[in-house]
């Protein structure tokens, strides 16, 4: 596939589409949340997704890991393909969800111990051996840059951690089932700027191993991290291009320019 859109900045993408979204329409009851959007996500890229509130960003992530099915009365049309397979034809929805790591914004419930939180997904997938679980827990906490802070109190409650630590714990948890794709939804809402920087460093390292979809309310975060950036507005994909173009003086749409420069609305 070659379209002009695929000119990417130096690091990341090898232009292999991992996710292909075509004409995706989502409705909650009668009110539309996504109005027919199409784009591809490439292997090992960080795709920034920006847009004001209610623009359908979270809905998009929920479609990808099929947790939208848990919300009653939703309609999904169009197709989302993961490695060329339409996700709706995948019978093992739990297996599909484990291929995608999902980091939700705080507050999320972490009613278990730090260890159990990270071991939750491997356990539900059937891993029982203590040594194997220990290894997964250590690896994921290390990847999320949390290991050094919590290695002596793995048995204490996840809720006893600070906000920034909790958010990193959700990242460790999302990594625990070795996902091919990592989706992050506005992770910096409850996190201080220093921790945000630490997590951003973590994401840059993770990019070598997986594809990252970064929904963010901070446009500068997309500018710092993303190879490409998509701008959503009221359920429409206004523009998707390399981050350099989106943040340049002349993106193809005026609304994009206004939004990234803070003069929107």
């Amino acid at each position, binding site marked *: 596939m070659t379209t002009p859109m695929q000119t990417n900045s130096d690091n990341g993408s090898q232009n292999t589409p991992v996710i292909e979204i075509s004409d995706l329409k989502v409705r909650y009851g009668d009110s539309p949340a996504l109005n027919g959007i199409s784009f591809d996500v490439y292997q090992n890229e960080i795709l920034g997704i920006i847009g004001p509130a209610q623009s359908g960003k979270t809905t998009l992530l929920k479609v990808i890991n099929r*947790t939208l099915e848990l919300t009653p009365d939703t309609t999904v049309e169009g197709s989302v393909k993961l490695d060329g397979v339409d996700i709706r034809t995948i019978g093992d929805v739990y297996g599909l969800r484990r291929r*995608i790591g999902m980091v939700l914004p705080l507050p999320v419930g972490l009613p278990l111990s730090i260890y159990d939180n990270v071991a939750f997904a491997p356990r539900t997938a059937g891993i029982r051996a203590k040594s194997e679980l220990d290894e997964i827990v250590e690896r994921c906490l290390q990847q999320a840059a949390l290991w050094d802070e919590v290695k002596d109190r793995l048995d204490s*409650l996840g809720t006893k951690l600070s*906000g920034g630590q909790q958010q990193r714990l959700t990242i460790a948890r*999302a990594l625990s089932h070795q996902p091919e794709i990592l989706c992050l939804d506005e992770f910096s809402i409850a996190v201080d700027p220093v921790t945000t920087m630490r997590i951003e460093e973590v994401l840059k390292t993770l990019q070598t191993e997986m594809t990252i979809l970064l929904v963010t309310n901070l446009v500068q975060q997309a500018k710092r991290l993303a190879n490409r950036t998509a701008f959503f507005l009221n359920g429409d994909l206004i523009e998707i291009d390399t981050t350099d173009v989106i943040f340049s003086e002349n993106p193809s749409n005026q609304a994009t320019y206004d939004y990234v420069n803070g003069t929107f609305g």
Partner: protein
Amino acid sequence: MTRPKLRKKIILLSITVIIEIVALIFFWNALKKTDVTNGQASPALGTSGGLPNLLGDLNLILPISFLVILLGIACAFYVEEWLSATNWVRRFIESQVAFLTGIPSLLYGLLAVAVFFGYAGVFKATLQNAEGSALAGTPFQRNTALFYTETLIFILTVMPVAIKTTQTALRSVETPIRESAYALGATQWQVLTKQVVPRAFPRMLAGGCRAMARAFAAAALLVGIYAWSHTMELRGFPDRFMLFLGGALLLSNASSFLTEIYVPASTQHN
């Protein structure tokens, strides 16, 4: 809730419990005295004759209410976790629950009276079989009118409360907790057993206590009505009445205690 506030609540609750117990003891003594002045006194009342009767009552009340509460909890799980909000079965059960929990226990007492006098024939026959002197042992024996009335009242009073409190407890587990568990690839069963139930458990327990309290209140009422309609024979009445009234008070206290001390884990940090 902050710690000092919590401590204050706990102290207040403890004081309430103590006052209630003291009041109950006074009340009990007073009741027993009236019994004596009626000239029906039996010296062995509180000790030898009373205790087995009380245990007999409990032996019957506890299993019934326990079963009814379990049934209510199961029903709440089914309605809340498996039926969609628009399902007509769910709508029917929820409307019935809202209706039944809105009725104060007192009205159920009146209902009980109605049922009693409606089946007065059956009731009298039972009493005659019980040979007058053994009246104290009659009320909660199986296969008596009183037994069936009690069971009916339990189903009407206890079950809606059990359903409602369990549903509230299940709803108190925030959507993000469920969603993030599902996102980790957990099945509905795993989400329920590993995330939802552990978090909702204190509230479910509190709800169970509340339902039990209602059961005991209903029992106290029934015993009261029973004694009232047979004033010449008061043996065992104070013990029973106090047992159930006290039980109801203590359980409802336990319930509010559980709800007070339980602080949702997600709000604990900073």
